[in-house]
């Protein structure tokens, strides 16, 4: 029952995302959800593995490779090590999955970014991932294909005091719409060291939908790697 409800919930989320039409209620079953103290009621975190909820905590880093600007095909390894995306919460499902990272806070050290220095930079992104598994529940390693579209909702951009003083007409606030986004495709592997613990890793190639519009006329290669671990709640 719970499985079915969660799937219906995911379908609803998908419909909300793709049609933005909440007037037509989906054909959802009218089962009841029992809320217990054992389940964190995080709206977008409901998923399951082996019939039980699995909460995944992990991090994702992105590797940016510039073909025409700086970096060639080279990988700025320091970026991965110092990724501001560390501590990004990940939620993983064993089935076609909708994943959401609400309020991804990307902290900045005071000296690292001028213009956004000492400020926080937050964004909300939604991941729609379809993972096609092979050998699910039979192998310790599971390989799958990840296809995604990551629309960027809004990002709060704030400026350093110096920048605001120099250019008082600029506007701090929320920027962007859900339309902007990134497509990505890649592979994902999952290791199950124990019955309850899962570890996953992911590599994906990402390309921005706005690439062709760049006034700089350059090509950007953008990869991302992810890793994390999950633990069954019951």
């Amino acid at each position, binding site marked *: 029952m719970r499985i079915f409800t969660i799937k219906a*919930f995911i379908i609803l*989320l998908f419909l*909300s995302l793709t049609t*933005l039409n*909440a007037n037509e*209620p*989906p054909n*959802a*079953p*009218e*089962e*009841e*959800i*029992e*809320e217990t103290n054992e389940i964190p009621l995080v*709206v977008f975190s409901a998923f399951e593995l082996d019939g039980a909820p699995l909460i995944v905590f992990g991090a994702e880093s992105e590797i*940016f490779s510039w073909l*025409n*600007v*700086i970096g*060639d095909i*080279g990988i*700025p390894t*320091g*970026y991965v090590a110092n990724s*501001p995306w560390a501590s990004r919460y990940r939620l993983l499902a064993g089935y076609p999955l909708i994943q959401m990272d609400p309020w991804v806070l*990307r902290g*900045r050290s005071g*000296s*690292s*970014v*001028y*213009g*956004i220095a000492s400020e926080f*930079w937050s*964004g909300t992104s939604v991941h729609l991932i379809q993972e096609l598994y092979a050998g699910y529940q039979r192998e310790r390693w599971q390989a799958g294909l990840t296809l995604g579209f990551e629309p*960027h*909702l*809004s*990002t709060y*951009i704030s400026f350093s005091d*110096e920048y605001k003083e*120099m*250019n008082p*007409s*600029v*506007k701090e*606030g*929320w*920027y*962007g*719409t*859900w339309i902007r986004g*990134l497509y990505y495709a890649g592979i994902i592997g999952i290791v199950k060291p124990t019955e309850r613990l899962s570890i996953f890793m992911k590599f994906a190639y990402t390309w*921005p939908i*706005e690439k062709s*519009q*760049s*006034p*700089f006329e350059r090509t950007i290669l953008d990869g991302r790697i992810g890793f994390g671990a999950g633990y069954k709640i019951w």
Partner: protein
Amino acid sequence: MVIKNKNFLLVFAILFSTIILSSCGMNPEESGNLVPKTVMEDASLPAETHNGIRLHLEIKNSGSSDLVIFVHGGPGFDYRALLPMASIVDGQNKIVFYDQRGSGLSQRVDTGSLSMDAHVADLKSIFETHKGSASNKILIGHSWGGALMQAYIKKYPSDFNKLMFLSSMPSDDTVMNKVADHYPSLYGNDFASYLAQRNAIGEGSHAELDFKYINFQPIQKFYYCNDNDYKKVPFWRFGYVALFKTLESLLSAPISGATMDYDYNFSSSNAAYSGAVYILYGTCDEALGKSASENLYNTFTGASQKQLIAVSNGGHYFWLFNSADITSTFSGATGP
């Protein structure tokens, strides 16, 4: 506690739709939001059209007889940091400040319109427009502006009778390629932060790219005496595309890797210049300081007069931090 699934789904749908709809924030591609508007969007800015491009340009002491034109650095920066020097230029000079095409608050242009030749043509047009009957015509350039000056006198050696280079790019690629050695720090945290912004704002507009360039500044600490001095350099707006595309005029090939290979030489045309030359640099400037300035100084073998001046405790923008040391030099050099 039991929650009716129907109600739960309804609440969720409303909440999610609210998030989606409320997520439509300001447009990062629009000038005036993340970065100031250019002359194309703000008609109140002082501007002139040269070679069909609208340039942000202002004139000080418009009734004066002689002429000083300032050429800013970058490429892609603006003239805001140069403005304080207006007060130490001799008062007999009409002073022209302008943002180069694709830079500062000037009109953004196609990448094909960003070349050294195009910048030289703009400067020539400005010169012809404002020279009037000036007998004393002085060209002052900072950093990249020094390279543009050298390209200009190569083509028009007799337009200006005095040149003043401030923290200038040297005369050839030998020294410049050593400057590029400072840039492995691109792979540190600062560069990472710059790159990370790609996901928040896009690359579909000059406004977004120009905003992103701001974050290159902290990785250029080697230009200054103190780590935080870069925060004290005033600017309006960078021209991200202008920077990279214009710079390619001085490179052996388009930028494609972690390093840039400079390939240029103005030595012979510098030697043919017969006017007065003043070369100033800050002693803290590890990039375009002593060695670059000495390289430049040595090429002006035919100059009627030349001076090499080291400004102590000065970085790449030494006049912003230590203007007292250069006041007499400036007023003397820009005098009749």
